[in-house]
């Protein structure tokens, strides 16, 4: 609830000013205005001779099952450029909306009208766009504040966001505000045929276990998804949709971005854009074993990746790490050498088109996600593979 002054009705007579015990009303441009000092005591409501002061009731903060409608995707931008994960979320969002026979909407803070139209071509039926310059830099409170307001007003059934530094930081505030569930880093999302609940699958408990999480009673059901885990939807140049322009109000922030420092590590960019990645794990046994990985990567013009075990051992720098605490990658070919395949590693690479696993242990979980499995010693297999690749490529 908050108190609002109708600027068209207000004559600037100032009779409300003395009625406020908190000095929360001032005159600006000959009209009364309620400031943030307002305690919502309602003392001013009856004073106004024009009836220009009114109480605006907000819908209840908590939503229950059955109230929600539609699937929402938070489309993140950074420096005015839409993040790739936004299009991936529209891909999975389209599937979920199809299963629910509901609309798919995107919410975008900052960026331009052209970007909003781009979201429609990637699958959105409606785009809620707030172009307020406050969103040029990322501050959690205005992001969480406006998204929560929009959810309260439009009541989506599901909200998806990218598990990026931005999404992972402010989306929890929205969940706290709305008292609803939030599942981080989902690797697959589906709709339960019976209950229509969102089935949110994520790795759990550090071991080789996946958990399906549901949020049975509260709405919206919220989930974050890491970049490059979901596939983009179909891009349709001629697709049409609605753009709703939102005006942000009361967007306060206790934080302020003073400066942005760009630092792009070449390797991490290469990892994420690589066509082929050759990755090594504990099974390489050390820097000498890793040399075989590097040689194969050179023969294939591939990028070198690593499991957390290899990075923790100090055989290769952190920026090569693939997995939950490293980079999520989605190359055409991923060659995992001496990597057993802990869930944390698998979630970072299992969307790759072709996965080749080379491991001594036939029971290693890496073989569960493999397209081709080679059970063998990498010290024997890799030199042969590197030689054959060079032959095929005529080097």
């Amino acid at each position, binding site marked *: 609830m908050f108190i609002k002054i109708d600027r068209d009705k207000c004559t600037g007579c100032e009779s409300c000013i003395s009625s406020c015990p908190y000095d929360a009303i001032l005159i600006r441009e000959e009209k009364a205005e309620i400031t943030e000092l307002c305690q919502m005591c309602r003392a001013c409501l009856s004073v106004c001779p024009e009836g220009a002061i009114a109480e605006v009731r907000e819908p209840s903060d908590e939503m229950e099952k059955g109230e929600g409608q539609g699937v929402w995707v938070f489309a993140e931008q950074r420096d005015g450029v839409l993040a790739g994960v936004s299009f991936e979320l529209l891909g999975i969002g389209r599937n979920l909306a199809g299963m629910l026979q509901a609309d798919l909407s995107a919410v975008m803070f900052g960026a331009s009208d052209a970007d909003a139209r781009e979201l429609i071509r990637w699958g959105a039926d409606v785009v809620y766009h707030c172009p307020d310059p406050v969103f040029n830099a990322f501050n959690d409170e205005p992001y969480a504040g406006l998204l929560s307001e929009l959810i309260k007003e439009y009541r989506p059934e599901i909200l998806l966001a990218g598990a990026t530094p931005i999404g992972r930081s402010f989306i929890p505030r929205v969940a706290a505000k709305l008292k609803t569930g939030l599942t981080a880093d989902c690797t697959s999302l589906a709709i339960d045929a019976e209950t229509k609940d969102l089935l949110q699958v994520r790795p759990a408990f*550090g071991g080789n276990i996946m958990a399906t999480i549901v949020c049975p009673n509260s709405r919206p059901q919220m989930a974050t998804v890491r970049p490059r885990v979901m596939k983009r939807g179909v891009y349709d140049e001629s697709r049409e949709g609605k753009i709703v322009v939102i005006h942000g109000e009361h967007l306060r922030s*206790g934080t302020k971005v003073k400066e942005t420092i760009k630092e792009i590590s070449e390797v991490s960019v290469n990892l994420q854009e690589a066509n082929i990645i050759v990755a090594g794990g504990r099974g390489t046994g050390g820097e000498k074993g890793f040399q075989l990985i590097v040689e194969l990567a050179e023969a294939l013009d591939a990028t070198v990746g690593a499991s957390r075990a290899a990075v923790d051992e100090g055989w290769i720098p952190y920026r090569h790490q693939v997995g939950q605490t490293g980079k999520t990658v989605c190359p055409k070919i991923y060659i995992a050498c001496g990597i057993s395949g802990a869930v944390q590693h698998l979630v970072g690479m299992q969307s790759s088109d072709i996965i080749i696993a080379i491991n001594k242990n036939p029971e290693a979980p890496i073989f569960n*996600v493999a397209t081709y499995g080679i059970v063998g010693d990498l010290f024997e297999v890799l030199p042969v593979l590197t030689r054959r*690749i060079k032959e095929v490529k005529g080097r």
Partner: protein
Amino acid sequence: MKIVVCIKQVPDTAEVRINPETNTLIREGVQSIIKPYDMHAIEAGLQIREKTGGSVTALTMGPPQAETALREAISMGVDRGVLLTDRAFAGSDTWATAYALFKAIAHIGADIIICGKQAIDGDTAQVGPEIAEFLGIPHVAYIRKIEDIQANSIVVQRLMDEGSDVVESSLPVLLTVVRELNSPRLPSLKGKMAAKKAEIEKLAAADIGAEEDQLGLRGSPTQVKNIFAPGVKKDRRMLDGPAEVQVDILVKELTGLKCL
């Protein structure tokens, strides 16, 4: 400056069992450690205290044996350990955990609250920002550097995808920290002595004025529906024979798919 560091004790190994009835973790009987990211949160708290003076309180929520984590924190130099323990907290998801910690922090009082980046057993990284929202204060997540700290404000570097942001925040504030921020100190002899003698304060749900229906399983919006091992990929092909033969098959397949 009143500093509160939220820490979490987690199972040391992968030998975690699950209660089949409630689908929640059984932590009893498993060796526990302070979750690694939280060590950096403790170190950050101690370094701020060295600059500004004041006190550092370590706060954890868990079973009575989580007391050992607080003693470990005290051995590093933390002034005080508070254990939030009550059967009512059992089975809390991130929302209910954040709610209980918020109530406890409101009870203790704090200018700066520091959390590790994520729990190694859940990796959700949600609890910190949720606590900040409940407290109605700003937060800055993934901080890698503290540049400046004054009586009413702090300047930090926040890790982003393509570099970092320099962010100024008013106090009170909640920070979540990454490993890069610092190297946690080892316990001193004096610290170890203090840890042995320290009185750990215990708080239950009623002490912090928490509403029962917001706690534990009942207060948790999310539920674990089931737990499973990841399945085998449908089109998987295991190759046979000596290395030379396997490599030949693989290279032929890849050439056929025009991958090379």
